[in-house]
């Protein structure tokens, strides 16, 4: 079996990160921003999984264990984000980030 080179995987996670950050910076809907955060976090999680798989020595299961911890962490972060969305929606009746303009730039 010929293994795929590491660079291919790096390209995948790099692309995911780029998509996530692009979404984070350009979307105006808060829910879409949360989804973008998730996509970008997944790039990191993927990195840990396949770096652990490719490693020749020493890492054992640590890469996979970190991936599991990070999945839990990403869920926590999004839960807090949703709480903020709910609060904002109750106050302004909108989850559009562009309408949050009471603080001047």
């Amino acid at each position, binding site marked *: 079996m010929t293994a795929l080179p*590491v660079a291919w995987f790096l390209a995948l*996670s790099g692309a995911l*990160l780029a998509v*996530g*950050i692009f979404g*984070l*910076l350009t979307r105006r809907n*808060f829910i879409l*921003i949360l989804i973008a*955060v998730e996509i*970008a*976090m997944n*790039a*990191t999680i993927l*990195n*840990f999984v396949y*770096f652990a798989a*490719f*490693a*020749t*020595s*020493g*890492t054992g299961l*640590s*890469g996979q264990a*970190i991936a599991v*911890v*990070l999945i839990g*962490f990403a869920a*926590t*972060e999004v839960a*807090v*984000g949703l*709480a*903020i969305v709910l*609060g*904002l929606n*109750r*106050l*302004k009746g909108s989850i559009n*980030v562009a309408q*949050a*303009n*009471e*603080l001047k*730039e």
Partner: protein
Amino acid sequence: MDFTSFVGPFVPEILLLGGTLLIFLLDVLGLRRNEWLSTVAVTAVVLALLSVLGDLGFGPLSVLATLSPGQIDTLPAFGSAPLYHFTSLGLVFQAIFLLSALLVTLASASRPSDEPGAPIFYGLLLLATLGMLLVAVASDLIFLLLAIEVVSIPSYLLVGYRRRETRSMEAAMKFFIIGALSTVLSFYGASLLFGAYGTTNLFLIQADASTVGFPVLVLLGYGFLVAGLAFKVTLVPFHAWAVDVYDGAPSDVSAFLAGGTKKIGLFAFFLVFLGPVLLVNTAAAGQSPFGGGAVDLGPTLSITLGVLAVVTMTVGNVLALLQKEMKRMLAYSSISQAGYMLIGITIGTAPALTGATLQIFAHVLMKGGAFLVVAGVGALGIGPLIDDWKGFGVRRPLTGAAFALMLLSLAGVPLTVGFVSKFILFSAAVQAEGWFIWLAVAGLLNSALSVFYYARVLKVMYFDRPGPLETAEGTAAAASAPALGAGGLGYGRAVAIGLAAVLIVGVGLYPQPVVGAIQMAAQHFVSAGV
């Protein structure tokens, strides 16, 4: 490893966790009066602070120690790739973090006793403080980043805990988006470093820092980490969020963010970058950063950090000059102060670290204290603009004097702690020679620049007569505000502001005990690594 040396060092963390749980329990039981909750929070923080100071061997407090002072730096590591590691510099930082939490909880004790959201405020504050203590002992990249998140996630909610105020909620939203971006970047950097070194342990990474198989991965990894952490520390291209967040958050929370949680990013810089930077400054290897097998990160990293430091202090100071609102001015000044602290990490010698740590300690008192004053005077009918403070120093001599002292210390005037820290920092830059001297020059020029906007506030406070309109509005607002003790500030807040002011002058006049402790810790940190 026996039970005592395993649990002993974690007594402060356990106390804070206990306090958090107790507060949420009181919330569930319906006991939500501000006095009770703040008593629990202040008690937990004070006990934790005493325990940390005891471990550091501070005078009579050492009877409280769970460790003997010499033991801290020699505690056996837990496993071959330890997640955490106690150093005396880490304990010094724990004490600084607890001091900022103490100021904020003390000041919050004087809020109205039926204020909604009080349990959320105190519970999350203690939880964030717990995360800060964990940052100070991390020796693994993932442990470090997760501990930073234990601070960040509660602080998003702290900014927005007044759910009926649109400004607070908007600040929370901005803070969350930027925080998420920063998290994503720093974790991605950590994953690349894991790929390059096969471990996330900081000891192993730093032992290996000069030669690795994949130089590009290392360079990218450190790049993402610098960017991610720079958001937390509000370094300049990544600073724009801070002003809106500090402005929109309740001022007590701003005091905690600017005085406390921002500093975890700086300590993370200490942990992550000092190894690689030091390798260079001592060994002075001179290979191309993109060359074959051997990669020397030091020059690249330390020049990057140096440029960030200079840009940060300059931009922060120039923008602070242009502000008309008090909180925004303080926020920009906070950004510029982060630049001074970064100088210490760029140089990386023990005296420079001492200066940076003392600067961080001073900043907790100066900026934290200033935000607490701003939070308190809102109830006295003083508006958000700097011009609203006309005649404040004359009408409120004590509070005015404390606030003036904090501003003078921020400007680095002699006899204050702000002067001592800048003096140590800049002389370390001069001693280090090479291009580091320019960091001292930039720092001095910036200090001179910053005097302008602090002096402007002092002039408004002491020499401008309040116009008839302002006084009429002021008296009306002051009359409608709930009557509190200590001249309208409330006793808790008065004690917190007084404590900050006394420490600013006390350490400024007699710096030896504090500086000595930090010096020993920094010396050990530099020689032992991580």
